[in-house]
C-alpha cells in the first residue's frame, strides 16, 4: 500500500528559513542546511523548499544554496519560487530538485504549465493553490503570494491544472496559514474529491493530530512548516503519532544517511569575523 506522506515545507528568504503567518513572513528560524540534515534523519518523507525572497539580487544566492542543499537530501526535494519559464524549471532540476512547484505563473499562463509538464513529465510539476474562504462553503484562489483574488474556485482551478498536466496539488488555506488551528477540512475535502491526482494539505498545523485530520479529509500527503522548527526530533515525533494512530506511514525511525561535509560558511556572512576587519 502507498504510504501517506509527511512533508516539511521550508520557506527560504535571503539565506535563512523563515516562518509565516497568514502569508506574512515573521521571524527567521535558522539555516536550511540544518533543517534538511535533521529532517532527513528524522523520518521525513519529502521536503518542499520555496524561495520567498523579494530581493531580485538574492535569487542567485538561492540557486547556490540549492546546489549544496540537494547534496544532503535523500528524500524527494520539491523546489519553487519565481518559476516562470521552462528554463526556470530546468535550472532547478539541474541544481538537484526532483520536482518543481508553481503557483501564479501556472494560473496566469496555462501554456507554460502544459509545456513544462510535457517536457518534464506531469509527476514533476506540482501546482500550488492558495485559497481563501469567501463565504460559507465557498473559496477563491488568490495568486501573487495570496494578494490577488482571481474569482476562480480552487476546485475548478485544480481540475483544470490536472488537465493541463499537474502531477500534484499543494493546497494551502490562506486563512489557516500560521494559525495553529489545523487545516481547513472542508477545503481539503472539496479539492481532493475533485481531482484524481494527489493533494497535499498545507496551512495551519498546530498539533500532530491535525495531520491525521488532513488525511481523514482526503489528503494524500500532509505538510507543515512552522511547527517543525525549534523542537528536537519534530518530524519523527509527528510520524510517531501517525504510526500509533494506525495510519499507514513509513516507519518513524532514525534514518542513517551519509551527509557530505558542510561547505565553508558564506564569505559575506563571516568575512568580517575571519579577517578581523570592521
Amino acid at each position, binding site marked *: 500500500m*502507498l504510504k501517506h506522506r509527511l512533508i516539511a515545507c521550508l520557506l527560504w528568504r535571503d539565506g535563512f528559513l523563515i516562518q509565516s503567518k497568514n502569508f506574512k513572513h515573521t521571524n527567521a528560524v535558522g539555516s536550511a542546511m540544518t533543517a534538511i540534515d535533521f529532517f532527513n534523519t528524522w523520518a521525513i518523507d519529502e521536503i518542499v523548499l520555496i524561495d520567498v525572497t523579494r530581493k531580485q539580487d538574492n535569487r542567485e544566492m538561492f540557486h547556490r544554496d540549492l546546489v549544496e542543499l540537494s547534496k544532503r537530501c535523500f528524500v524527494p526535494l520539491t523546489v519553487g519560487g519565481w518559476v516562470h519559464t521552462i528554463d526556470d524549471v530546468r535550472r532547478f532540476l539541474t541544481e*538537484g530538485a526532483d520536482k518543481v512547484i508553481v503557483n501564479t505563473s501556472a494560473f496566469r499562463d496555462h501554456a507554460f504549465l502544459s509545456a513544462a509538464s510535457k517536457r518534464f*513529465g506531469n509527476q514533476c510539476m506540482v501546482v500550488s493553490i492558495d485559497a481563501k474562504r469567501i463565504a460559507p462553503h465557498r473559496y477563491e484562489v488568490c495568486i501573487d503570494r495570496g494578494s490577488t483574488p482571481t474569482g476562480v474556485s480552487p476546485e475548478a482551478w485544480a481540475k483544470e491544472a490536472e488537465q493541463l498536466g499537474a502531477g500534484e496539488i499543494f493546497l494551502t488555506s490562506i486563512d489557516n496559514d500560521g494559525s495553529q488551528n489545523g487545516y481547513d477540512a472542508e477545503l481539503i475535502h472539496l479539492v481532493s474529491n475533485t481531482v484524481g491526482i494527489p493533494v497535499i494539505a498545507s496551512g495551519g498545523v498546530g498539533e500532530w493530530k491535525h495531520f491525521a485530520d488532513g488525511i481523514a479529509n482526503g489528503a494524500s500527503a500532509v505538510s507543515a512548516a512552522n511547527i517543525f522548527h525549534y523542537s528536537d526530533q519534530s518530524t519523527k515525533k509527528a510520524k510517531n503519532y501517525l504510526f500509533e494512530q494506525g495510519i499507514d506511514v513509513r516507519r518513524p525511525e532514525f534514518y542513517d544517511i551519509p551527509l557530505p561535509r558542510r561547505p565553508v560558511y558564506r564569505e559575506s556572512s563571516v568575512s568580517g569575523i575571519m579577517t578581523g576587519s570592521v
Partner: protein
Amino acid sequence: MLAIVDYGMGNLKSVANALEGLSAEVTLTRDSSVIEQAEGIILPGVGAFGEGMRNLHTFGLVDVLRREVIEKKKPYLGICLGLQFLAHTGYEDGESRGLGWVNGTVKLIEPKGDGYKVPHMGWNNVKILKKSEIFAGLKDDPVFYFVHSYGLELDPSEESIVTSVAEHGCRIIASIQKGHIFATQFHPEKSQSAGLMVLKNFISYCKSHAQA
C-alpha cells in the same frame, strides 16, 4: 568510474548526489567514449517515454548503450524511465520503440478499486520475490519512493526476470534483473537508507565485475 547517462531529462543531479554521497566516482555524460570507459552505466530519468527515447536517439546513445551493455556485458542500472526503456514498445506520448532488451511493453497503470491515484507517487512497500545482488542487506518488506504513471508489463516468457513488485490497485513491477542488467521502477536515489543500500550494492557489483 560510473557513467550516469545524461539525455537531457530527469533528476540526474539527485542520482549523482546520492552516488557521490556513497563516495562513488561518477560522471554525468552523453559522451560515448566516457560511457565506454565506465565500469558501470546508470540510466536514470523521469519524464515521458517517447521524448526520452527520442533524446537517446538524438544524442546517438542507443548504439553505444547496446554495444557496452549487451555485447560487452557492462553492468547497467536503469531507474524509472531507465527501466521502462528496456521494453520493446512504450505507449506514453504516442507509440514508440524502446531499447527492446526485455520482452515487454510500457502502459498506463490502471489501478482497480477506490482511492488509488495516478501518478503512483510516494513511498510504497516492495515485496522481494527473488534474490538479487542489489537487494543485499535490505530489511524484509522495504519501502521505496515511486513516482510514475506508466509501468512495465512483461510477456509471460519474461516473468522470471521480475525481482520485486509493489501493490497499487494493480501489480507494479518494482524491479527486474536479467544477468548484469538491473532496473528499478522506484527511485533508490530518493529512498533514503533503503535506496542508498541498493546503490551501494550496485557500486560493489560494478567493482567486482570490473575485476573479474
